[in-house]
């Protein structure tokens, strides 16, 4: 019979079983969900754009390196195994133009990982989305390079300078420049002639590295929903708000449905709504909070696109809403099971 005295027993607190899902598996799921969009941006309709791949790899390696170095220097336990730096690296590359020099993304990675993420305590403690904050600082520092977009069918060299790459205005830039002027219907007609709705949906347009293909991003988003990594509230509220606002605010002389489609499919809305705004650390934890967060992102996006000097507002709208997350979490609390009715009424009266 078993010698019960010789068992080495652990007497820890319950529960004694844990779900198979852990931080690493969640991050791995996000990486998997980003791959279709990456593949699309490499394939890019005929011209194998390997700079998209090398740019992403450089970004990932620098993010992981900065995280490792910071924690090494400060003698903190290493956390790079959780793959969150890999996700940040991919997302940072996705929101930058494919034509920027490599050193620029290494710098952006430093800002994302060290300043935004690690200085606040590492994973889960940052209050801004690291990739978007990294992009914001790059835009502020290198406005030219960060707002020059290769044309959809441009040939882009992997190693040499990208100065000679054919550039083109993105759909949002075209709309943004014409908004408020007389010739908006004309510009819009030019836009719809240049890119069909199918082009917009597939991603055959100019834009940041990983943001153009709504289809591929949507595939990734559905994967994340099925795997329960994200919930539907933020993406649906965000995209829905942008769709409704653009539907009712189409400029005179432009079909409101077309305006809505080009507003939703152009720019970084899908990437932002599915992968950025849903970032755990910087979005509310309650479902209602997430809905409000998503609606807020949508409203600010439309506001910036319409009135701001930037043609695109997704990045800043998310960063601004990131700053409200603590507020949404503080004031939107679930009504607990069995809460006294009086308290409920009081809360309603307030």
């Amino acid at each position, binding site marked *: 019979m078993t010698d019960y005295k010789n068992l080495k*027993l652990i007497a820890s607190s319950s529960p004694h079983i844990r*779900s198979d899902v852990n931080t690493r598996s969640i991050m791995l799921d996000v990486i998997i969900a980003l791959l279709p969009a990456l593949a699309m941006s490499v394939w890019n309709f005929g011209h194998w754009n390997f700079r998209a791949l090398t740019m992403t790899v450089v970004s990932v390696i620098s993010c992981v390196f900065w995280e490792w170095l910071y924690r090494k220097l400060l003698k903190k336990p290493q956390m790079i195994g959780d793959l969150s730096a890999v996700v940040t690296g991919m997302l940072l590359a996705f929101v930058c133009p494919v034509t920027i020099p490599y050193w620029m993304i290494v710098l952006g990675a430093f800002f994302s990982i060290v300043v935004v993420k690690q200085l606040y305590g590492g994973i*889960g403690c940052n209050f801004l989305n690291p990739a978007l904050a990294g992009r914001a600082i790059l835009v502020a520092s290198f406005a030219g390079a960060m707002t020059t977009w290769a044309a959809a069918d441009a040939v882009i060299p992997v190693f040499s300078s990208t100065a000679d790459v054919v550039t083109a205005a993105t759909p949002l830039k075209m709309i943004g420049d014409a908004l408020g002027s007389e010739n908006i219907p004309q510009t819009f007609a030019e836009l719809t002639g240049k890119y069909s709705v199918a082009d917009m949906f597939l991603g055959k347009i100019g834009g940041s590295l990983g943001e153009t293909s709504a289809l591929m991003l949507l595939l990734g988003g559905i994967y994340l929903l099925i795997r329960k990594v994200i919930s539907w509230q933020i993406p649906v509220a965000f995209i829905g708000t942008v769709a409704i606002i653009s539907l009712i605010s189409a400029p005179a002389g432009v079909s409101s449905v077309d305006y809505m489609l080009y507003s939703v499919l152009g720019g970084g809305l899908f990437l932002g709504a599915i992968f950025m705004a849903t970032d755990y650390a910087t979005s509310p934890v309650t479902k209602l909070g997430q809905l409000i967060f998503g609606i807020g992102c949508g409203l600010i996006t439309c506001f910036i696109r319409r009135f701001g000097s930037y043609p695109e507002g997704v990045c800043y709208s998310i960063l601004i809403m990131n700053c409200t997350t603590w507020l949404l979490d503080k004031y939107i609390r679930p009504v607990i099971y069995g809460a006294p009715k009086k308290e409920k009424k009081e809360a309603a009266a307030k």
Partner: protein
Amino acid sequence: MAQAFFGGVHPNDMKAATNEKAIEQLAAPAEVVIPMSMHIGAPCKPIVAVGDHVKIGQRIGEPGGFVSAPIHASVSGTVKAVEPRPSSMGGTVMSVVIENDFQNTVSEEVKPVADPDSLTPEQLTEIVKNAGIVGQGGATFPTHVKISSGLGKVDYVIINAAECEPYITGDHRTMLERPEQVIKGATLLAKCFGVDKVYIGVEANKRNAAEVLNAKIAELKAPVVVEVLHTRYPQGAEKQLCQAISGRQVPSGKLPADAGCCIFNLNTTCAIYRAVYTGMPVVNKIVTVSGSGVIEPKNLECPIGTPISKLFDACGGLKDDTYKLIMGGPMMGMAQYTTDVSVGKGTGCMLAFAGKEEKYVENPQCIRCGKCVGVCPIRLEPVFMYKYLMKGNWEAFRDQLHGMDCIECGACTYTCPARLPLTHAFRMGKQQVNNARMAAKAKADAEKAAAAKKEA
């Protein structure tokens, strides 16, 4: 289909190991160690001395207060010792050690009730009290207190057969093998509370049991309804079962009786049946022995006080790399550091885990994913409760985050991808809150006493 409760998780139920195995009688052990505290409330005082001869069903522990339940000998034989022994709750507990004489002499006190159909609620409560019946799902609250505090207030009487913890199959087997005990026990409760029907909540993964019960109900024309519930943990938690069946929520800090519900475990119901129809108090317990460390998992019926090593022996022993023994289910059970503890009235399961170490993380760091908020059946926010407690702020834990409403079901900890010790932290937090309350009370009492002295 009944209504849903909030949140919940779906752990792998692991019940296939034992749910088709009939309940086996464990060969009576040579010695039983009966703890004098197997219930919530005051411990019992032993009323036997070393050398006394005791019979099965004979009272050996006198209740130490109103919220308490007497304890009876589970085997016949000689009292070998009355001394503290290791407790399954940690530390030691005064225990009566009986050497089995293998005669199985039953005490003369054990007599069935002459006319079970004409029992008044008071009589039934008295029988339940004398039989030492406590909530046998694990909470071990004395059942007579529950009945008497619920009388007149309750219009929903619910039998808890959800058995939502993974691995455990004792209730499932009881329903399949002893449906008459279940239904007759439930009928007694219906009469006692004067309700038209009693609900039995069964999770959807035990449909065959629901069918057996329904056949029995039809046969006996009993005022009992079987409700098939979602298979989701913690379906069998008292507040959640109340919500799923009656649609009512138990007010914060109150008992189910305050929502007009009274909930009895299936095992408790069978114990009531036995106490009335056979006169036998709680002396036996059905225990599921399972887990990766057990050679041959089984459902065993054994005398109360059987050392858990005897259970494992009956299941072919343990694997050498067993690293954890759990009394109770894997979600809420207590890990044991020794096999010297014995089966109590609330022990429904003994698990042994072997092989791979736990999913333990050296430096767990919250990623704020909010999954814990989604699964909490009380709709608390474990993420913030944990953060406040880590900063030592138990006032915010208590007041703003309603931490004292936590039922410690473990759903948040189960689901946490960062592997934070959430439930553990909340137990400590509640302890801190209680300590502070006691300290404040002691201080107030002392001041009062000082003031009184001054006046005098």
